[in-house]
């Protein structure tokens, strides 16, 4: 059964109560920072390597070519084979542009439409031109561009 306390006791109770709450808040805060910090912060920075994606002479001029990169990545505490599809576009004698095939709307894979000369997303009708810029549909941003360099006849991409 709850007990009655005198009104004169109220300020003291309130003061001691706030100290109690304060200490408990600090304890909860420390535990929250440790537990929350562990769970919420990013643990693995994506490690990007230069990978050989294609031979330069295999690429047609100005025609996007789909290439699947297979690379071993750290997946937390295990090694996993990551497959990633990119498009390579030979834009000059020894210049190649590369785009991630992932639509920037909701993550479906775009495909090159040779007739329309555009990338089309099969999910919600997003359309991108050969430079990756949005031509139509809901995608908020252009296709993600990937750094490239040409070593002799090898096209290297940073992925």
């Amino acid at each position, binding site marked *: 059964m709850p*007990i009655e306390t005198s009104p004169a006791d109220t300020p003291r109770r309130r003061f001691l*109560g706030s*100290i*109690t709450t304060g200490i408990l808040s600090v*304890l909860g805060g420390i535990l929250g920072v*440790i*537990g929350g910090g562990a769970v919420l912060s990013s643990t693995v920075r994506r490690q990007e390597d230069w990978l050989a994606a294609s031979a330069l002479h295999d690429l047609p001029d100005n025609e996007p070519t789909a290439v699947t990169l297979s*690379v*071993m990545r750290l997946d*937390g505490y295990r090694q996993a084979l990551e497959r990633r599809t990119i498009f390579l576009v030979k834009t000059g004698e020894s210049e190649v542009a590369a785009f991630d095939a992932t639509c920037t709307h909701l993550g479906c894979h775009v495909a090159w439409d040779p007739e329309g000369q555009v990338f089309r997303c099969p999910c919600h009708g997003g359309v991108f031109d050969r430079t990756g810029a949005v031509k139509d549909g809901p995608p908020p941003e252009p296709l993600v561009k990937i750094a490239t360099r040409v070593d002799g006849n090898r096209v290297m991409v940073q992925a």
Partner: protein
Amino acid sequence: MRDWLDSRTGFRALVKHVLDEPLPNGVGWWFVTGSIVLFLLAVQLLTGVALAFFYSPSPDYAYDSVRFIIERVTFGRVLRGLHFFGASFIVVAAIVHMLRVVAFGSYKKPRELNWIVGVLLLLIVLGFALTGYLLPWDQKAYWATTVTLNIVRSVPLVGGFLSGVLKGGADLGALTLMRWYAAHVFLLPACLIALTLAHLYLMRRQGISGPVKAVPGPPVPFYPYHALKDTIAAAAVFALLLTVALVFNAPLDAVADPTDAAYVPRPEWYFMSLFELLRYFPGRLEPLATVVIPGLVIALLLLLPFLDRRPGREPARRPLVIGSFIVVFTGITLLTILGFRGAPVTSSQPQQAGPAPRGPVMVEDVFKNVQALKGLTVDEFMGTMGLMSASLGLCCSDCHPGAGTESVKWEDDSNPRKITARQMVRMVQAVNRDNFSGRQVVTCWTCHRLRVTPLATPTLDQLYGEAITELDDVVSRAEGVPTPTQVLDRYLQAIGGAEKVAGITSIVATGKVEAFGSFGGGGNFEYFAQAPDKRAMLSHLPDGESSRTFDGRAGWFAIPLAVVPKYPLTGGELDGARLDAQLSFPAQIARTLTGLRVGPRTSLQGTGVYLLQGNGARGSFVSLYFDRESGLLLRTIRYTPSKIGNVPTQVDYEAYRDVGGITFPHRWTVTWLDGRDTFDFSDVTFNVPIDLAKFGEPLIPAAR
């Protein structure tokens, strides 16, 4: 908003009911013990949930995921530390709480049921500690659980069944880990929460017992007067726990290895008394220690309120109860101390002396820009580097610009070979994992064979040339060859007779050494070996001191002008150093190596030999080549596992000469992946005392 919530839930009345609990006047600091346990349980729950975000309960990944938590997760080391050390804190807090209840007679009528619930809660806490132990899947986890399962198996009548239930499968493995994980994170927490709520409900229903002698005065509300005491006590305990978690690393052994017969399991301190008790009840009496005595203590604890029914709560009026608790508590404390001091009863190994090895030097502590081979110790890392360069027929400077000079930049990535090497390491690991269950069937050597670019097309000349006679790394028992015992008996006979050889307890020798095939210059060496497992090879070279020592427990490698001049041995290299020390004494070969087999007949440079092979700890194995004519040992190769393949170390023995009736090889050629040393022995003596410091950590070699 609060009013709306209150109108729907009535939470204000509930909070008032909880906080305004009337406490008897005079409730002091002794009554904070229960709140401390409750607070620590909350810490375990929170940290356990956070750990579960990363932990993987499978033998393939459990250990890696724990290492991942420690090394990569933000605050991961502290998080695991809080959970690990928190377990010990809870056990202490729960026992202190129980002793407080006993001292104050708080278990008496009408609080009998709450006492029983409290005892069950203590057992649940110990259940948590036991099940949590296996989860890291390290050596300690595996072997301590093996002992636990065997203890359970010794229970009369139902032991086999219970042990089977705990194991989940035929052996301690994936099903066991899953089972104990499920118990640790689902079953036990459910029981804990239910019993804790029951404990709190019963405490409120009966009221807390208060001081032994009632203090006159009106009751005081729990909040904030006693709540503040509880909070201050919890904060103090948490400050201590956090300090411990910050200062000390929660231990993590090497990954569990079911083949390691040398590992000596020791339980955590709270189970040490039970472990020690086993020592006094050997053989058929074992169930007394495993079931009868602990069962009796638990039964007496549960029955305490019914055995002591007199109303008085003063300790002085309850000498039997207080005396029994003092006796039992002292007994448990004594057994725990004896357990820590005494030799482990489950080990057939001799007790090892010397200081405990310090923490390993990790590769990230020494080198920058390590990517594909992170998490290795320096010696493991150097082994993998040696394997790579040896497999491709390259030297350090082929990948690391300036290697071998003072201006080397190991971290430099300008050479594309380094990038390729990282990709190849990951590729080979994936090939082995995806196709061979992680066994190292494919290594650098499999394809490269001293070439940078592996051959893709069969060479017809080789196809129709001489047959390749290389034996597999691991040989099977062959037909038409002597047994291992016959080969070893012949060897012991050839070097002086089994009895005389068995009498060798130490070897001291000196002589001349040519280091790195004379590349490192010549000098003097000292060799010391003491049975059963101590060894030191100390070379005094023009560039400084080179040494390889093993003191029976820890080992070190030191070499002048090296990338890392000195480092402690760990993992495979430590196992290798132990094998070297044990095999220094020929009479010990048969009991050092397991699974001895004699392989197919083969030859060494035209000399017919028997190849005897046996296993060491953790996947290491040794090949011994004995001359078929003389019976003498001509070569040993020990193979120790590394992240990317086995690391071979070879010793060729020549120039056998008599020393006091023992035939001893006076020329040893030691070959490893990075070099070759030749030792010419000139002065060999047996059974002389050796200063144990010779086997210890060497001084860092000073360049001359």
